[in-house]
């Protein structure tokens, strides 16, 4: 077994994800099978391989040049707050975080 029930619980905790009892067991079994499959990567010796951290070669990335740091107008706060589940302009309201 590659992944235990405790592992899934720990990971769900890290990801702030509520899982039901049924989900917990289903995902554990399915992810176990997926990790088993992923294990085939160990057939390859990658000791001297550089990890691919960038998709494009250096000369193909636009970021080779930096842009000027200029201020541009961005008056979207009102529109953005309209999407919030519980806005109180100019804030997003959330349940109390700090106990007195």
């Amino acid at each position, binding site marked *: 077994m590659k992944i235990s029930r405790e592992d899934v619980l720990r990971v769900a905790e890290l990801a702030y994800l509520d899982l039901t009892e049924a989900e917990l067991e289903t995902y554990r079994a399915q992810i176990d099978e*997926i990790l088993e499959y*992923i294990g085939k990567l160990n057939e390859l010796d990658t000791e001297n391989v550089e*990890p691919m951290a960038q998709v494009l070669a250096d000369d193909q990335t636009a*970021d080779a040049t930096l842009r000027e740091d200029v201020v541009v107008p961005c008056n979207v706060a009102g529109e953005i707050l309209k999407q919030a589940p519980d806005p109180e302009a100019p804030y997003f309201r959330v*349940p109390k975080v700090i106990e007195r």
Partner: protein
Amino acid sequence: MTTNWTIGGVREAIAGKKVSARELTEEHYKRIGEKNREVNAFLTLCEERAYAQADKIDAAVAKGEKLPELAGVPIAVKDTISTRGVRTTCSSKILENFVPPYDATAVSRLETAGAVILGKTNCDEFAMGSSTENSAYGVTQNPAAPGCVPGGSSGGSAAAVAAEMAVASLGTDTGGSIRQPGAFCGIPAMMGSYGRVSRYGLIAFASSLDRIGPFARKVEDVAAVLKVMAGRDPNDSTSTTAPVEDYSSELKKPVKGMRIGIPREYFGQGMDAGVRAKIEAGIDLLGKLGCETREIRMPHTDYAIATYYIIATAEASSNLARYDGVRYGLRVENDTLVSTYRKTRGAGFGAEVKRRIVLGTYVLSAGYYDAYYLKGQKVRALIAQDFREAFQKVDAIVTPTSPVPPFKLGERTNDPLQMYLADIYTVTGSLAGLPGISVPCGKIAGKLPVGLQIFGPAFGEAQVLRLAHAFELAGGATV
């Protein structure tokens, strides 16, 4: 009158005043009204916006102005791509009522070129899936193969074009999500090189893999839509400054003498015999066109799915951390902030998304990072190297798009690993960042569409399109 419009056909009819942009828009909404209940390709329509754009085109026609290249062309957009003022859900409950405050660059470039955006199309939730069955808003039917899935994740975009509800559409491709539904629905579908099309406004799934690209009825239409979207965008630092070629004129160049690699590893076990027969017939056709086909080896192909599902889920777990019920989207209120996060995400995400967040968080977590994520990044480098070496000897690589023809609705939903393996031929090019297209390559027993996939070197979009176009003209769709 025709219902299977092409971009060239629209251009001629509008310029010749045979049809107005408004009439063409009405005609498409009428067809959507007739067919969408059954097909479920569209989740949201934006009629007001579409007619306003159509009227602008008609006014330009009346004044005798020069029309832009996509004037009046009705286009559908996948629901993972932001549209200002038009609900964008990613087919998820967590974004059920989300209305973006801005347009994706791909969308605004299409509208600037005269396109009429009809609405938003169904997909697997957050583009995670290969059948569009992971949508929170119902499955999409495959118009080309009744009873079968349309492929995924961009199944709604493929079905909209296949059912003549749009002339072209936009999808997004992370591991095959444009090419595979294109193959399943019997239409051409393309992803350009990584960085070719700006992703500003694309709701992120896996940022080192995600790309936006077109579906259309003809390869030349795919080329026209890609051309309009391509090119550097200051709002997306991963978009490239590499020059954009004029794909439409590049298409017409000859393919005779083009060197085509056929990787043996793409014809292994798990491949459907019917698919194999069609792809072999397709390769014969390329030979008749004067292309020089030769077998090549790409030894790391077999490791691509394992690599992909490490990298894609790791990036997804990070990207999807933003859905917290605070700033937008669903909130399931609970007594503390942390329990609100947990309840919101537990209720808002569907099964496949949760599975991938758990897997992705696991492969990145302390103690497992080296064994999984770092290993994946290293094997990804080996897969990219396979392609680089191959492209020193050949101009294009030809493979099947999918190992299997369209499968029945519900057939694979209980087995995630089997579903993942459906992406076995598409994820390689995604990991390497290269351009790829799927073009129709006959139908098994005259019924189930098969797609032939063509990969090119980085920024080799023009040669990929040229070969696909020649294949289509030579009758590839009926081999």
